[in-house]
């Protein structure tokens, strides 16, 4: 693998126990959020990425904290894998003052600039141009960093994708496009929304495209390590991860538009099961896996308890924060 060696000093992209832990952290966090949402404790809309965790865990294993990402409305996995603190993440989704965004953004806008997470996004495809600009900044400021745009197959129908693919290729920006192709754009299958394949689109822009089983975290991590190394020295790449959306478009969506048989089969492709099998093959025993699960569960409980106990945000402070404060000494 050409990329892994060059990524020396960064995270080992196929540190399978660490990847398994991240899958578990995302899964159990989202399951917890799903239950709390059903109980009315999580306000607004949430979009769960259950079944898609391997994309987040695998891609982020190839990144450093200086690398930036732009996420989507289904971004919990991206956020946690990029290193958002669990308590601040939960507190944000619960609309608390201690949330990373002080309870003003919620699930669809959770962000942590300190770890290069430029925000989930409520607008399909919008993160593409934000990541494009971030890549431009990395290069202009001579940083050895890349930016990553996560987007779903739904965003393939957005015109902004064309503009961003063209500009990234034209300027050879250090940018990785990661398509999480889960086969559904809201309530309509991709087959009824798209007349083309991303692979063919990539060829039109002469951007190297690589497809991977997005539910196999080791495969995603290996591919991402290779591509990120290529992006750092040679410009944009596209990683298309085939995956499955297990839950509805949003929580509360009963998915009556989906075939029951299709849903019943999804467990066969579960990223956690696939990773556990690989770990077992590598000699890690069931006890070790259980220990990871127990540690993750405890971390979630501690963080969630703190988030639940936190105070709600104050209106006056929010109102005063629409614009930046004036520099000290400047007249009001």
């Amino acid at each position, binding site marked *: 693998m050409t990329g892994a060696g060059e990524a020396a000093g960064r995270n080992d992209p196929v540190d399978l126990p660490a990847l398994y832990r991240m899958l578990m952290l995302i899964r159990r966090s989202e399951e917890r959020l799903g239950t709390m949402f059903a109980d009315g404790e999580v306000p607004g809309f949430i979009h769960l990425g259950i079944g898609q965790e391997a994309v987040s865990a695998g891609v982020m294993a190839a990144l450093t904290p200086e690398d930036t990402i732009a996420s989507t409305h289904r971004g919990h996995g991206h956020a946690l894998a990029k290193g958002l603190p669990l308590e601040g993440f939960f507190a944000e989704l619960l609309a608390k003052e201690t949330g990373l965004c002080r309870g003003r953004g919620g699930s669809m806008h959770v962000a942590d600039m300190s770890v290069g997470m430029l925000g989930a996004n409520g607008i399909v495809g919008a993160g593409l141009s934000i990541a494009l600009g971030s890549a*431009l*900044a*990395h290069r202009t400021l001579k940083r050895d960093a890349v930016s990553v745009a996560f987007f779903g197959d739904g965003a393939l129908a957005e015109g902004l994708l064309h503009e961003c693919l063209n500009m990234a290729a034209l300027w050879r920006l250090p940018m990785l496009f990661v398509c999480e192709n889960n086969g559904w754009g809201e309530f309509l299958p991709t087959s009824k929304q798209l007349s083309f394949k991303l692979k063919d689109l990539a060829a039109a822009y002469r951007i190297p495209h690589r497809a991977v089983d997005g539910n196999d975290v080791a495969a995603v991590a290996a591919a991402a390590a290779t591509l990120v190394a290529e992006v750092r020295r040679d410009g944009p790449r596209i990683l298309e991860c085939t995956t499955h959306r297990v839950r509805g478009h949003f929580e509360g969506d009963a998915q009556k538009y989906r075939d029951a048989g299709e849903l019943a089969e999804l467990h066969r492709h579960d990223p956690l099961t696939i990773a556990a099998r690989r770990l077992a093959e590598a000699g890690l025993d069931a006890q070790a896996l259980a220990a990871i699960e127990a540690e993750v569960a405890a971390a979630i409980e501690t963080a969630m308890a703190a988030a639940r106990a936190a105070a709600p945000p104050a209106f006056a402070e929010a109102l005063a924060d629409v614009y930046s404060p004036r520099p000290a000494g400047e007249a009001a």
Partner: protein
Amino acid sequence: MAEIRYLRAINQALADAMAADDSVVLLGEDVSEAGGAFGASRGLRERFGPERVIDTPISEAAIAGAAVGAALSGLRPVAEIMFMDFTTLVMDALVNQAAKARFMFGGQRSVPLVLRTPHGGGLGAGPQHSQCLEAWFAHVPGLKVVCPADPASAYGLLRAAIADPDPVVFVENKALYAMKAEAPETMPVLEIGRAATVRPGRDVTIVAYGAAVHTALEAAGTLAGEGVEAEVLDLRSLQPWDEAAVLASLSRTHRLVVVHEAVEAFGVGAEIAARMADIGFDELDAPIVRVAAPFMPVPFSKGLEAAYLPSAARVVDAVRRTLA
């Protein structure tokens, strides 16, 4: 003091901002090799290099979106959108991303971008190259909007906009690009949100911005011949706007006329009139009158366009109404 053209003042502000701060970059269609469609960035590629003066494809949505991402990642981008009519294509980046980022991310980071764009008619440019859309942006919490009327304020406000931590829509009336005016050798940086009294008077306050300031001044000259002393306020900044300055002037003159080139309905003048009718009610001796464009697209024909644009004669008539 020396004479300087409006366009040259913009160019000077860009150059001085780039010289002062390496993180300032320009991007837009034809801003680099061509020096800008109107020439605003002429010479800057040669001076600062193509890495900082960046020609983009004709991709307005990505230009603005990239400016947001770049601003969140350490640059101070100045994006040029060739005509304000084309800002229809940048709305998501400005309205959903740039404007909200600071607030919705809990104040983690501001978005120090400037979007420069020319508005205004009078050049026969037709319905899609002439419209004044600044009220749209002034309506969006998180954005600032400025619209300078003369070279010195164009310089001072553009420097302020680039230094500002928040996103600023910087509107230039293209009919003013060739305008020459006296300006100090070293033009000061101005404060966004402050109006300027460009002609003092005691009988009526005329508030205007952009090219309409000159229409208001012409009207004030005519009125002076009739013994009416109009005070003309150049608003300079539309969001935030200098409510205190307008109220202070109104409190002396007790009459208010608001002039702008954008259509009258739901425009900046409506906001000013509504606020002054509220907080200045006791000071008013007459209805507040607006002079602005009729509710129609900017027409192409010279004759139609001349009838469309607010004229000094209409401002004079409006002032007479307040004095009746």
